[in-house]
């Protein structure tokens, strides 16, 4: 869906998406890194299980909800990537304690 511009010279940051290594760039948000990765990053909604991807990328729609380093329902579009960050795509409702 998206590709990176050649003029982007930012250093790489490695994150893990459901355990798979993904090359992001310093300054990417989690959502931008997921959309740039080419991987299937669709979450499933808590209400009906419908697949979704980020919609607004500015912190208002909550369609980018993702589990980051064990904490569920984070807005991926507001969190910058960090080396070694563990991302889990949410499939339906969150479990208690996460």
């Amino acid at each position: 869906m998206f590709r990176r511009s050649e003029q982007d010279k930012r250093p790489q940051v490695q994150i893990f998406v459901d355990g798979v290594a993904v090359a992001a760039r310093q300054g990417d948000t989690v959502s931008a890194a997921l959309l740039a990765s080419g991987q299937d990053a669709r979450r499933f909604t808590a209400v009906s299980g419908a697949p979704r991807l980020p919609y607004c990328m500015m912190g208002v729609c909550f369609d980018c909800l993702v589990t980051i380093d064990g904490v569920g329902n984070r807005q991926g579009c507001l969190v910058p990537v960090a080396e070694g960050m563990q991302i889990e795509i949410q499939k339906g409702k969150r479990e208690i304690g996460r």
Partner: protein
Amino acid sequence: MTVAPKREDYDVVVIGAGPAGLAAAATSAEAGLTSLLLDENIGPGGQVFRAISSTPVTERSQLGADYWVGADLVQSLRASNAEVIHRATVWSLDRNLDIAVSIGGASAFVKAKRVILATGALERPFPVPGWTLPGVMTAGAAQTMLKSSGLVPDGRTVIAGQGPLLWLLAAQILRLGGRIDRILDTTERGNYFAALPHAFAFLTSPYFTKGLSMMREVKAKVHVVSGVTELAAIGDGQLANVSYVAGGKRETISADLLLLHQGVVPNVNLAMSADVEHRWDDVQLCWSPVLDANGNSSVAGIAIAGDGAGIGGANAAGVRGRIAARAAVEALAPAAAAKLPAMATLRADLAKAERGRVFLDTLFRPSPQFRIPSGDTIVCRCEEVTAKDVLDSVAIGATGPNQLKAYRRTGMGPCQGRLCGLTVTELMAQARGKTPQEIGYYRLRAPVKPITLAELAAVPKSEADIKAVVRG
């Protein structure tokens, strides 16, 4: 890195670091007031100047001169003594000007003598069939990715809607070598006539020549279809096709990405939760706060600047920020106001920045069918409530958006009505034969952004707090 506010009390707390917030915080700090700027994003700029300090798009002409103006605003802020905290989500503001803010998973509490809300705008909902499908995003979302990460669409891409941002985004995507297959212009033909009486102000405003050259640049490279009257995103779990009607003829094209845009509206959640009075704006078709000429709201001590005060664009936002901050300085430290630009000068700047706005509002007024959906089209994305669900609830007695919460949970999901509120108001108003003003809006309350229970539980408690809830 977690940085809590350095003080518990400030003269001025500004919320939001877009053009209005940057200008307001720099102005009040320059006058010597203790000033704190809280912003939810990673860096300064808000949406219009997003990633102004970090964008990987270094070829300046690609983002355009109007973008790089933001760098000057950031520079003035940094030259001032204002304290700035990013990744700080304000989740509560009340009539006592007590502010709760979540920073790095912990909440801090500060009190202000004056609060300037600069929470800006968000994109108007565009509830067409299939708008929740993966592959459908806002134009603003694509622009955010372009500015902050240098990402451009590379699959089959359709942009649909209307308004200046749509053309700016298209130009930026093309300049960065991205792909756009088709632009579907939904501007109603009748709007051109309606806007005509306001054309003179627009023709003599800076928007005119810039807008025209940008449209020319885009139209030279992309197939633009005008007069689009119906639009739908189609796919099974992923966008596959975009279907539209133009000139009475239906066409369906395959697409990987559909970018929607029909203007922006004030982001009202924090202001409404603080009890700031809002009125329905019949021209801009949204809720706008009731403000005096200095941006002061109905709640003493709370002013609103920028697009959150009614859509005026980035230039107007910066000036409104300076006006609100100057008014705060006049109230708290009148002697210091002398070193700031005179209010009369600022008001003249504002009039200039707002020139041509009525023309744009009238020309790009979104059509009823793209604001008020029907049938199975989703209205509330979070709780997955359709237009038919809303109308069924009206039929059995739901009177307005707030009552509808009890029937259908609309507006009770994580986005707290940001993506459905206007649609629900207009849909219910139409169904009940009332005006949006009569129908009203959701009653909004803190926390205006979700925080974890653990974060709430970790808030420092006094002996009295504990006594109030512990038995025995």
